[in-house]
């Protein structure tokens, strides 16, 4: 470690850590970040810039880093765009540079830099337009490959991620002098406090400077406060946690790095996404130092002064010969302290003419840095002092253009900060986000003493709002120096001066944008891409705004600010979507017969959240259709068994239940006899069909409504609404009982025999009848209903008995030559009968379209009645439900095909309708379809041409009644 001095408060100097960077093995210390370890190993070149592929080194020591983004190996693959400044070193860490080829030192794309005059802001809007086809084929692929930063591996992200919820009285964001005092004050008051800090260590800037607090070293004071906070049970410390957004209702998004810094995190998540709900919050996020836009300011070795100080104090990184270029008192004081501690300050340059100091290093007031040299790292700077240029050899140029309060979180609700001329920066106003106030440097109070005092004050105000008594606090003594600066937004000299390092936006680009009329700050941002890189312009937006103001002749506050949008720091999609990969995306609903169906080899398909068997294969089946035909045959010829438990079941109970059902169904249910079942249609209030199903009257005041599987939730929500909004005080209650009952369809000519075995004796139940039954000791329900057109029953038992009932029924059916049937056969059976599903009820059809206008009672009001009478919802121009038969019975047809007149062209103007459902009917030996066709009911017998261009099918079909099989319905009634 060539560039390491003694000390380093963050380091455990005794613990060497080996790691790899770009294939080279290096050694750091425990406590290093990747950036500090690289600097200590004298690696300054850490990446290439976005557009010109210029060599770049680290600028900052925090999450705001624009340059030092690397690819990091984790979970067996590389993760892109990892900030070297935030990534803690661990043994075995492997990182590599990104956005360069073949290597970071020799990057072919650096040729772009030579063409910079032609690649100015927005150049791409003006060219690449000819010839037209070349955009997709040539220009765009080249641009895409050149752009981007890190590579995203295509392998699934196998990292573990976690989401968690936390609640507190007071969230303190940042643990510098302000945040610590807030937490201490609120903690002593007994408030439920969360103190969140992005860094591994709490203390903020107190970790990076030498001053004294209460007569002890700043770091010792921090340790003392932390010891007290740790001992308080009502205070939770959350290090490594970035608050990334403010949302409504006191909600804050946060990202905690849990296992990211560990060589072996085990089953601990890489990151945890926290949703923190706080009654009050205090933003104590401090301030960020800003660079100065001078020619050549993007070379590796150019850093922020505060970063140089942090690397020196915390990580013992020797920056070599340092030139400091600052425009404020803080910079000068800082340079003096660093020099006292042994740093080689080669010179201090300050544009202010009226400052002077008794410094141990050369002091150039009225000076500016006008150029830099060094291909892969800084070697020399050129300064201009009162018109005279001279060169200074150096390794590091430390910039300090003043400080910007870190106020982004206060702007996430759309409010704008105000300009503070005294510090030449924007500061937050009170109340920009309800419940959140900024304190300390985050609102422009820069001295340590001011921060400590402001922290106490902010905490007291929050405690008062929380109804808690604030303790008496004695303010520690600390530095309270003034902060004076003269804004220097750009050094006007020959050469390119960078604003946005990450996106390669220079002062010239901003000036050009203004020249081309993009003078509004939003236009400038969009035209130049200023501030849109991974650092979101943290170090550059302010400077760009000032340059724009200069170019347009306006003041900075007149020119405005850009919009701050969440997240404040980039957050991985894996964390925000924690747990959703694979099966975790949505709950799985399994019927009681699920295990049995899987054991029988049935492929399970998704039906909403449910799984249902597609078909039950047998040895020797050629394909799924063999099984489907067999199962259809069971029902038509012997007996089939199907689990229909997924259909929604809603108990409607009470003296007004019938009246209520009359209001929600198109038909009348109140006159249904006890023990009888009726088919019903429910409409949406807009007059279209919502769902269909049966309604059984179990008792005088007890109805059971069934819904389709797909619409069960929607229907329940709808019924609750109708009841609560329009039926206030009616004597009825609703309850979903879907899950309590396992329900099995037993259908086919031999259905009665199977039931006889189960029940002992089959009740003499008419078609559409219901009665309670006993299966041994178990009370069940028997419905004589049919979705297949055969004699059929549905037998319901409490769900715990479902698995056993299914097993018995299948065995009994198999004994009679039948067996279980799945969704494929169920679909064939219902199409043969012209029964509809949501393939037909697609949300656009009316009862009229389905030929069910007769089910719309004219004697009462019901939901959807009025709107269904709109002129556009009935009439011959509507598409109506019909059956389809191909003229060639073996001509396969598929749902989704279009229908045309036999000789009409296959164009949109001539579409007559489309196929909604189709199958091969083994019963009838032909393909069948259901379709919606313009004026279809009046056209039975007509011949149309079916076109399925997607699948290359074309055939003649004839329209017919949708009930293909047993149109009189004798089989299910008898």
């Amino acid at each position: 470690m060539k560039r390491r001095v003694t000390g380093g408060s963050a380091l455990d100097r005794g613990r060497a850590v080996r790691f790899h960077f770009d294939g080279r093995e290096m050694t750091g210390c425990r406590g290093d970040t990747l950036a500090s370890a690289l600097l200590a190993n004298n690696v300054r070149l850490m990446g290439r810039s976005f557009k010109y592929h210029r060599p770049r080194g680290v600028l900052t020591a925090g999450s705001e880093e624009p340059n030092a983004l690397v690819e990091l190996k984790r979970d067996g693959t590389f993760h892109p765009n990892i900030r070297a400044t935030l990534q803690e070193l661990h043994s075995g860490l492997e990182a590599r540079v990104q956005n360069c080829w073949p290597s970071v030192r020799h990057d072919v794309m650096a040729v772009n830099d030579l063409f910079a005059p032609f690649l100015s802001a927005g150049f791409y809007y003006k060219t690449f337009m000819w010839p037209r086809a070349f955009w997709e084929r040539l220009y765009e692929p080249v641009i895409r490959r050149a752009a981007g930063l890190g590579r995203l591996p295509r392998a699934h992200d196998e990292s573990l991620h976690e989401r968690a919820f936390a609640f507190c009285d007071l969230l303190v964001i940042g643990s510098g002098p302000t945040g610590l005092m807030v937490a201490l004050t609120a903690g002593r008051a007994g408030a439920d406090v969360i103190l969140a800090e992005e860094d591994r260590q709490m203390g903020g800037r107190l970790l990076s400077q030498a001053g004294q607090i209460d007569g002890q070293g700043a770091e010792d004071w921090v340790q003392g406060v932390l010891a007290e906070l740790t001992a308080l049970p009502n205070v939770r410390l959350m290090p490594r946690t970035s608050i990334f957004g403010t949302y409504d209702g006191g909600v804050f998004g946060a990202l905690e790095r849990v296992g990211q810094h560990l060589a072996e995190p085990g089953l601990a998540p890489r990151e945890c996404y926290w949703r923190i709900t706080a009654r009050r919050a205090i933003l104590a996020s401090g301030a960020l130092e800003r660079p100065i836009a001078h020619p050549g300011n993007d070379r590796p070795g150019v850093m922020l002064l505060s970063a140089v100080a942090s690397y020196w104090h915390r990580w013992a990184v020797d920056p070599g010969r340092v030139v400091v270029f600052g425009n404020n008192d803080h910079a000068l004081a800082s340079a003096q302290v660093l020099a006292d501690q042994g740093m080689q300050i080669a010179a201090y340059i300050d544009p202010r003419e009226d400052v002077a100091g008794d410094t141990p290093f050369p002091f150039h007031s009225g000076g500016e840095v006008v150029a830099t040299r060094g291909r892969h790292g800084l070697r020399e700077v050129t300064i201009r002092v009162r018109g005279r240029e001279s060169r200074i050899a150096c390794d590091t140029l430390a910039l300090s253009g003043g400080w910007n309060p870190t106020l982004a979180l206060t702007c996430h609700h759309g409010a704008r900060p105000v300009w503070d001329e005294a510090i030449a920066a924007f500061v937050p106003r009170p109340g920009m986000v309800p419940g959140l106030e900024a304190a300390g440097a985050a609102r422009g109070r820069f001295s340590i003493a001011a921060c400590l005092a402001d922290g106490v004050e902010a905490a007291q105000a929050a405690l008062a709002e929380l109804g808690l008594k604030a303790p008496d606090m004695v303010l520690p003594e600390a530095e309270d120096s003034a902060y004076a600066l003269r804004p220097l937004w750009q050094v006007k000299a020959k050469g390119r001066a960078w604003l946005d390092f990450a996106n390669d936006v220079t002062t010239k680009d901003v000036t050009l944008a203004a020249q081309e009329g993009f003078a509004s700050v939003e236009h400038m941002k969009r035209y130049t891409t200023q501030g849109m890189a991974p650092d979101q312009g943290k170090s550059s937006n302010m400077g760009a705004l000032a340059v724009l103001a200069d170019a347009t002749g306006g003041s900075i506050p007149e020119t405005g600010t850009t919009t701050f949008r969440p997240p404040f720091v980039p957050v991985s999609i894996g964390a925000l979507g924690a747990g959703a990969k694979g099966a975790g995306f949505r709950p799985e609903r399994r019927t009681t017969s699920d295990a049995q169906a899987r054991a029988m080899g049935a492929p399970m398909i998704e039906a909403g959240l449910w799984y249902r068997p597609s078909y039950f294969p047998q040895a020797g089946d050629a394909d799924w259709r063999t099984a489907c035909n067999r199962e259809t045959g069971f029902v038509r010829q012997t007996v089939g068994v199907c689990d229909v438990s997924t259909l929604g079941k809603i108990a409607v109970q009470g003296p007004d239940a019938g009246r209520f059902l009359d209001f929600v169904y198109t038909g009348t249910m109140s006159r249904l006899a006890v023990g009888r079942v009726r088919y019903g249609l429910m409409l949406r209030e807009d007059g279209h069909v919502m769902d269909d199903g049966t309604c059984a009257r179990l008792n005088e005041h007890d109805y059971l409504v069934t819904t389709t599987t797909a619409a069960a939730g929607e229907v329940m929500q709808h019924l609750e609404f109708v009841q609560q909004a329009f039926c206030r005080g009616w004597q009825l209650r609703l309850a979903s009982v879907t899950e309590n009952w396992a329900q099995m369809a037993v259908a086919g000519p031999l259905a009665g025999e199977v039931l006889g075995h189960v029940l002992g004796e089959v009740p003499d139940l008419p078609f559409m009848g219901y009665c309670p039954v006993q299966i041994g000791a178990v009370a069940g329900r028997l419905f004589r209903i049919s979705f297949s057109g055969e004699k059929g029953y549905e037998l319901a038992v409490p769900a715990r008995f479902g698995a056993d009932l299914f097993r018995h029924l299948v065995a009994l059916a198999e004994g009679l030559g039948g067996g279980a049937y799945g969704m494929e056969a169920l679909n064939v059976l219902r199409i043969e009968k012209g029964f509809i599903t949501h393939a037909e009820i697609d949300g656009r059809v009316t009862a009229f379209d389905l030929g069910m206008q007769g089910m719309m009672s004219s004697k009462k009001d019901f939901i959807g009645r009025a709107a269904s009478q709109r002129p556009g919802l009935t009439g011959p121009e509507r598409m109506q439900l019909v059956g389809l038969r191909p003229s060639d019975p073996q001509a396969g047809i598929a749902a989704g095909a279009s229908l045309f007149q036999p000789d009409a062209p296959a164009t949109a103007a001539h579409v007559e309708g489309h196929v909604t459902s189709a199958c091969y009917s083994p019963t009838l030996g032909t393909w069948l379809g259901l379709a919606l066709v313009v004026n279809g009911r009046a056209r039975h017998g007509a011949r149309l041409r079916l076109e399925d261009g997607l699948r290359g099918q074309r055939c003649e079909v004839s329209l017919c009644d949708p009930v293909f099989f047993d149109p009189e319905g004798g089989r299910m009634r008898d």
Partner: protein
Amino acid sequence: MQFSGFRILKEGLAGNRGWKPHWRKPDPKPDYDMLIIGGGGHGLATAYYLAKNHGLTNIAVLEKGYLGGGNIGRNTTIVRANYFLPGNSEFYSHSLKLWEGLEDELNYNVMHSQRGLINLFHSDGQRDAFARRGNAMLAQGDDAILLDREGVRAILPYLDFEQARFPIYGGLYHKRGGTARHDAVAWGYARGADQRGVDLIENCEVTGISVESGRVTGVSTTRGEIRARKVGIVTAGRTSQVAAMAGLRLPIESHILQAFVTEGLKPCIDHVISFGMGHFYISQSDKGGLVFGGDLDFYPSYAARGNLPGVEQVMEAGMALMPMIGRAKVLRSWGGIMDMTPDGSPIIDRTPIEGLYLDAGWCYGGFKAVPASGWCMAHLMATDQPHPVARRYRLDRFATGHLLDEEGKGSQHNLH
């Protein structure tokens, strides 16, 4: 000034000092033939085509902020023509054809990139619905290919084909679908309209609409009164407020749609992809950011920002579909305000007030419609007749029941 590679070379050598503003910044005149309220994509395109197709140049676009600052600057940039209902199908088909010539038309590179759109489906029922859609697209003369699972895998091998909660059955591939650079569309139309003499007036908020005996006579603005014979309201996201100035109550409810972009990445997603089981769509911009979004936040809002439950829904869908993106980091999120109508389709029509026209209700599909919307709105304002491809976008269709409900969700505004 004509833009070209040669021009870039010439200006570059001359220090880029010759570039001129892309459009003028005129002060409003007291009187115009026509006013367009709203300087977004639709308003600027309307002005452009009024000038270009109808020779009307004594017109002004009034924008309360900066041009292109509304939804045209805040969307996921998808361009497609994959609708299936008569009324939508021909309109979006027309729009796509205009997109295909837009760079030549405007002499502005809007980076329209026909990289292909794939709508995934996850059940037989969804496949059937997409088959219907695809066949309707073919009948309209547009392109569509039905991919099976293996067909999707060949193009998008990085999707989760192994453990997805809702397996991928296949996809509907629309090769001419793609993306465009959203801001450039606004700027291109602005520059084109300006060159033809249209006044584009920024920082000019309309505060009232003057109506005399049932006829519009002009507007009040923060920059003074402006008279006009005809006024078009093209203010998606604020339509209800502007229309209320003329006493109109509209079939529109405003909702937020959040969208997201990640940090820049090398090319990894070449197509536009939409997930069928959870609202999620994604593409990668030319700068390398993954641009993606999902469903509405669902509550009425004008706040242009969303909440975490909405964020989580989108991220969860992304992880369910393509787990590789777990490593990508969201850089920025934003919210657009959507005019949601009771059938999910837009309105381009006259209003009960003579001389007042409405272009609104784009729900969250307005970006791809920009060229055709401008084209048809210009036709309507110039001729007082609906353009044939927009004739079903009537304001009274909800009352009459001649609906255009692509989603089949019914009259609840936020379900479309």
